[in-house]
């Protein structure tokens, strides 16, 4: 079990960040309004909401991939250098 503790850590990170993303998108980003009149205001608000939401999700996926790759190769080099 100790061998894969880091994978439990990754799962926990993904779960916590997913909850944070849900809260961020539905409680912070969706209620956002930009002070501008008429159709332009609605359009700008929509673009900003979609943009900020997409950036936050892409950041989460990028961070997840980055952590996974870094830890994988670190563990791999340590384990396989010793054994082969």
């Amino acid at each position, binding site marked *: 079990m100790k*061998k894969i503790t880091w994978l439990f850590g990754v799962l926990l990170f993904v779960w916590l960040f*997913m909850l944070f993303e*849900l*809260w961020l998108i*539905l409680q912070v980003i969706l209620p956002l309004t930009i002070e501008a009149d008429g159709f332009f205001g609605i359009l700008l608000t929509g673009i900003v909401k979609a943009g900020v939401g997409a950036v936050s999700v892409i950041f989460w996926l990028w961070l997840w991939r980055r952590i*996974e790759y870094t830890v*994988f190769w670190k*563990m791999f080099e340590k384990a396989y250098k010793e*054994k082969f």
Partner: protein
Amino acid sequence: MMFTEFFTSITAFFLSSLITLFFTPTVADKMRQRGMVGVDVHKQRKPEVPEMCGVCILVGLAVSILVSLAILPNYAVDFLVFLSVVLFSGLIGAVDDLRRLGPRIKPLLTAFASLPILLTRIYDPRPILPLVGRTRLTIIYPLLIPFAIAVPSNAVNMLDPLNGVMSGTCSIVVFVLTVSAAILGHWNAVILGAGLLGALLAFYRYNRFPSRVFPGNVGTLAVGAAIGALVVIGRLEAIGVVAMMPHIMNGFYFLASVGGLYERRQMAARPIRVLSDGRLAASPNKSSPLTLTRTILAVGPMKEEEVIRYFFLLTAFSGFLAFLTMFMMM
């Protein structure tokens, strides 16, 4: 607790188990006779194992749903929609087993399997999410339903690398979903989940290490679609996503490392290799796909049974997180 629903769930569980237990050896013999076998590449002897035996999961599940329908006709729409999604996905899997579909066409076809849900509108576009509560997603929700079937269906299809991993991990996921549905009082999902769990556990008896049967794409695509349909019909969206995190992780790592949709047979570099002592080791090749199996093997070579145990531990942990998510929704 509603007695009839509880009784039907127990009936569905035992009926699907018994049918799957009874039919699997017979179907395995027939498949072997017809030359429908796959090579177990992670064993030194490279044994041939009967393929497409996942069809027995479908038979067990279908009979249990039809019997449940006879007991509780008021859930007819839910049961029939669920059954049609599962059978349609199973059919796509069977065609893939026999004719080989392309890696891009398979997700597209499984997305079409969601049509019965969209046409009957049995979904609730106001899902309850953790920390947020009830949301109103009347426009976005129907657009996400094809993904709700295609993503789990293909994620389960991708997470079938070692003996018993598909049936074992999916049994844990379905157990978590069924218990969550029971706690939340969504009895339609409890009955469907009990039927699916019974069939999966019975199939695991033959599929576990060392495998005597392989589910084939007919089994993996149908089971994944069944989980997706169960999540939508039972309104278990957030719980389902968390319970399936190992499957999602595996799919995400694979797509991120190879940069697109490819079949296993199209990959030039394999993610794992078999050592001379029979243990499995992660491939040192930088261009090999980063799968969950390779990730587990990053700490050093292991026996196949040990890797399988780690798959179950990771799924059990995500199941625990799914229960925590459910309590956050209450």
